[in-house]
């Protein structure tokens, strides 16, 4: 076991771990946006049964800790014969979580758009999907923005949870290095600073978007979502 203990020496390893964190964040946000928007639209306009089903699922996702959901993906999927790598399982679990949280944001955004908008568009001859795409969603987007930005920050932090399952992301690698070098204080201070430096610009952006919304007289949905 070599004792190359300086922070400088272990940075390449930490960067590799950080790459995994970014990958997991990117996948969960991107797919979460896609699925979340779909689910949000389904919820806003779906039938009673669909809404109940979605309500049950989002209650489960929000009422149960994220680690338990990751655990479910890691340990229950293999029973169905689906054998994913650790990173893929983590990506699946994080995406599910993101999708349902974003679903709530999208649903709130859609419901904030006055129904009259949709009715007007339909009476002008738009198809339902067309009306949604060109009239409702763009307006909903404005009120959803701060929450979506907050959700992105939340996902960056949430990926740290998969370190408990051996996924070699940033926090896991740094913990490994602490075990090797015993530099707990230095390394954890570095990790704390790193996360803060990455997330702070996004948080500040979210706050700026929110205040801009408020000056335009629109209420935001900050508080919904992570």
């Amino acid at each position: 076991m070599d004792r190359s203990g300086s922070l400088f020496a272990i940075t390449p390893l930490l960067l590799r771990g950080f790459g995994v964190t970014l990958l997991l964040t990117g996948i969960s946000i991107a797919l979460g946006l896609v699925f979340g928007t779909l689910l949000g639209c389904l919820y806003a306009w779906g039938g009673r049964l669909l809404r109940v089903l979605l309500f049950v699922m989002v209650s489960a996702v929000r009422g149960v800790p994220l680690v338990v959901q990751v655990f479910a993906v890691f340990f229950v999927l293999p029973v169905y014969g689906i054998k994913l790598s650790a990173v893929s399982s983590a990506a699946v679990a994080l995406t599910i979580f993101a999708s349902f949280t974003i679903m709530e944001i999208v649903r709130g955004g859609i419901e904030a758009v006055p129904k009259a908008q949709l009715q007007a568009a339909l009476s002008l001859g738009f198809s339902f999907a067309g009306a949604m795409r060109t009239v409702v969603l763009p307006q909903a987007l404005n009120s959803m923005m701060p929450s979506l930005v907050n959700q992105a920050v939340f996902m960056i932090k949430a990926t740290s949870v998969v370190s408990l399952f051996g996924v070699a992301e940033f926090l896991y690698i740094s913990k490994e290095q602490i075990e090797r070098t015993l530099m707990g204080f230095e390394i954890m201070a570095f990790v704390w600073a790193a996360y803060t430096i990455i997330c702070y610009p996004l948080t500040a952006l979210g706050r700026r978007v929110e205040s801009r919304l408020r000056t335009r007289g629109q209420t935001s949905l900050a508080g919904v979502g992570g």
Partner: protein
Amino acid sequence: MDRRVMLTAFGGFGAGAAALAATASEAVAQAAPQSGLKRILDRGKLIVGTRSTTIGFGFKDGKGELVGFDIDLAKAIAKGLLNDETKIEFEVFPGGAERVPALISGRVDIVISQFSVFESRAQVIDFSLPYCNSDFSAIVKASSPYLKHKDLNGKVVTTRQGDELKALILGAIPEAKVEMYPNFSDSFTAFRQGRAEAFFNDSAPARYIVREFPGQFRVILDDENRIDVNQYSIGIKQGEQVLLNYINWALIRMRLDGRLEAIHKRWLESTDLIPGWARAAI
């Protein structure tokens, strides 16, 4: 209004669980069995379950590469099976708890990870011939005054999470205060930081630790009070007789051509821990 909400949620929860269960039995029943050995050969890659938290056996070196006794053994088996030691994929578990489930679910072909045979495990998975002797030993700071196991009564000791391990320690040292951490690395770190007086691991990795940190640690040698003499074997899913036979023959081959001894020498710097069957005169 809220009562309805809660009822819906709980009802939905229950319904969902029932649906999961029903589909699970279906899915599993339809999975067709195939000889494990054939599956590996068809795939062209051996999937080995191991840990990165077992010092000396499966751990990350300074460059972040997975190395150790178990890793070398796994590569040797891949080489014999597929003619190429790189045709191997390691599923790395963060702790010992995942080894048995990973074998049962088929996530890995074999497990090579300081795997001792306990009766409870042997009931659900199969084990190969043993490849390394060990007993559960206490590592203490070289400067500490503990010479025998009973000296640790009343002291804080640490090892990885596991009911069987706690039982072993308390069986030999009834008054020990056992603090368990998720894996061996975590407990070793806690011990080194001063949270515990002794760190329990198997004697094989203990030898590796003493060698790697010269002068810092020593192992308590207490021949009258040895804790759990055991041996490591390769874990295989139950019912895979063909694969089990192959692994055993691969180990016998490795003993005959000296590869097993070479791995022992490389990581443990001795041949003391080679199991009896592999030492008997040919």
